[in-house]
């Protein structure tokens, strides 16, 4: 009996140990760092306890970064889910099995590209003088639209690249989930003369509720790590209009001031907010 009870711990032990080393150690280090006044230029530091956290809430740039991150989350998560579900339904309804395969392969390619490469490619594509995307506007109107020079234009452009990578990928996942559904409820709805959108609204999507919630949370967590995309495409600009929390933390830690303790306090706030927010969302949606 004893052996039977301890066996799960034997299997779980190594994995938990790796998890503790990989996750807990850097997290505790970041928390410890955030309670000090350490900078890159002065290795000697003192404990200032919560001073960094108090300073954050009177820092306009941090509050702006929080707001930008919130906008970014709502925009990219909702657009990714809408694009993913929309394309998946379109493929499910209109494409043959062969075309579904071909489109699935094509839709997976963007997410396989490293984010930095995708950001460079799209940044150049949106260039007002040479970009392929802006070419029709130049050719037809003679205008040179510079979308990255406007606060909302920059935000929407960077979000577009994010959705281009993840929305298409999610479309493939959702399509495969739909294909795996039992056909009987869908056939029953068709016999009852339900319209195409009604079948998905009332049958297929409710049946996929749990995997869709999982996808939504995965995307929400992924969207929080938008640093590479933002850094390459806008560096947080124009001004601070696309400066997300991770971009601001990096700026404070490494580009501008070397305030690594202050940057760590932002990282800790981000982590706490993420855990609280996603736990409550998960519980709410999972009811």
């Amino acid at each position, binding site marked *: 009996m004893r052996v039977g009870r301890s066996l799960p711990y034997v299997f779980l032990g190594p994995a938990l140990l790796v998890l503790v080393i990989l996750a807990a150690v850097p997290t505790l280090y970041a928390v410890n760092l955030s309670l000090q006044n350490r900078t*890159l230029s002065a290795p000697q530091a003192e404990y200032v306890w919560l001073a960094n956290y108090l300073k954050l809430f009177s820092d306009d740039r941090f509050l702006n970064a929080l707001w930008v991150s919130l906008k970014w989350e709502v925009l990219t998560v909702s657009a990714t889910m809408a694009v993913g579900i929309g394309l998946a339904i379109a493929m499910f309804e209109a494409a043959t099995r062969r075309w579904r395969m071909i489109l699935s392969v094509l839709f997976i390619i963007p997410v396989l590209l490293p984010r930095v490469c995708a950001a460079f490619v799209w940044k150049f594509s949106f260039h007002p003088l040479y970009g392929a995307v802006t070419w029709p506007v130049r050719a037809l109107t003679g205008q040179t639209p510079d979308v990255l020079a406007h606060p909302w234009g920059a935000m929407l452009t960077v979000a577009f690249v994010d959705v281009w990578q993840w929305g298409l990928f999610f479309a493939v996942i959702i399509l495969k989930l739909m294909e795996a559904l039992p056909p009987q409820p869908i056939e029953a709805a068709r016999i009852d003369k339900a319209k195409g959108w009604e079948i998905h609204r009332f049958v297929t999507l409710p049946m996929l509720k749990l995997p869709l919630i999982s996808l939504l949370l995965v995307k929400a967590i992924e969207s929080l790590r938008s640093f590479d995309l933002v850094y390459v495409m806008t560096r947080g600009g124009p001004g601070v209009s696309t400066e997300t929390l991770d971009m601001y933390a990096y700026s404070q830690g490494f580009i501008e001031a070397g305030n690594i303790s202050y940057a760590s306090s932002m990282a800790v706030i981000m982590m706490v907010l993420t855990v609280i927010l996603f736990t409550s969302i998960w519980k709410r949606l999972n009811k």
Partner: protein
Amino acid sequence: MKHLFSTASLLAVLMATTAQAESICSSDLRVLAQPRDGLTLLEDYVDEFEELSGAGFEIDYLNENDRRAKSQADASTVGSYNVYYVDEANLPLFASSGWIVPLDGYYPAEYDYEDFDAGMRSVASYDGKQWFAPIQGGGDLMVYRTDLLTAAGLEPPKTWEEYVAAIRKLHDPDNGVYGVALRGQRGSGANVWRWLPLFAANGGKWTDETGAFAFNSDAAVKATEEYLELFKYSAPGTQTGSFDESTGAFRSGKVAMIVESAPLGAMSKDPSQSRVVDVVGFAPPPTPLPGSGYAHGFAIAAKANPEEQDKACAGLFVAWATSKEQEARRLAKGQPGELTRKSTYESPEYVKTFGENLSVAMAETGARTEVLFWQDPRWQELGNTWGIMLEELITGSRTDVKATLNELETFAKSL
């Protein structure tokens, strides 16, 4: 007495160097740098340095931001590198923190430090001492399209007023030509860098004689307004672009005139990088604009070189890596962005490669080059904050220049 002893020790080391050069280094040097074609080329000659000093070297490369972060972290803690790659932006921090030592006494005289471009030497100085030997850098050049100026019946402008008037006249977006290309992207090394000459030309100073902030002045307001006015004629894409975007627009034939960092001169004469090779002319910036001096180079680390002989060894590497011979090799390999010596700009090989016009302009612009940023460890923070505000002014998120400068002053006082 201690100083005398150090000097005597150093002399002994240098004499030993002459007599028995191979014994100056006891172990391989570790160098932290950022990727440069010239440094890749340098690694081909590691045997030459080994023969000269008795030891080899190993270079670790990181891109600019990572190199800055890593070198700060290394220098302030373990000190594992003998030679650091430093630049104009982090020199005050490295020098004032004692992480590097002045070159004086460790840079062998025969390598001719005075031959480096005057502008780069002024950037490499802090607190009256020279701290690094330049690998790349320079001041500013005015680069213009000879065909467009001739067609418009204009002479290359010599003053700021003539420059602005010529830009207005040559600005013809309907035919795909823009008057100028500026830098709008936020950053102390981006938009602020191109704004600095205007600030200085209008008499602006970062601090007064007592060290108090003095930048919030009529000079700053006028410089900013002039910069914003000029942006009406700047090529699309430069409002949030930096050196690459503005010089890219010029080299692709979309821009009539530009004042930019000196490496643009040779880049615009390189057929692999430029479509205006045959129709490009060069001159120093129009008066009263000074050149915005910048430089990157090698400095001797303090912590990893505790003994005088260690410092002499690192000094020998710094001198050898930036020597006339290495520069001649870079010129022969067609690496124009990494030339730093006056003797190179005036050499027959340089004139043959890039033309006499560029050679003369490079020599003249060195005398006009100044350190325009605030030489203080807090510059990065102040300069980058001003860069964000300036980008907002350029892209229209802000409109009140004076109120913006007031806000910057409040921020500066909190540093």
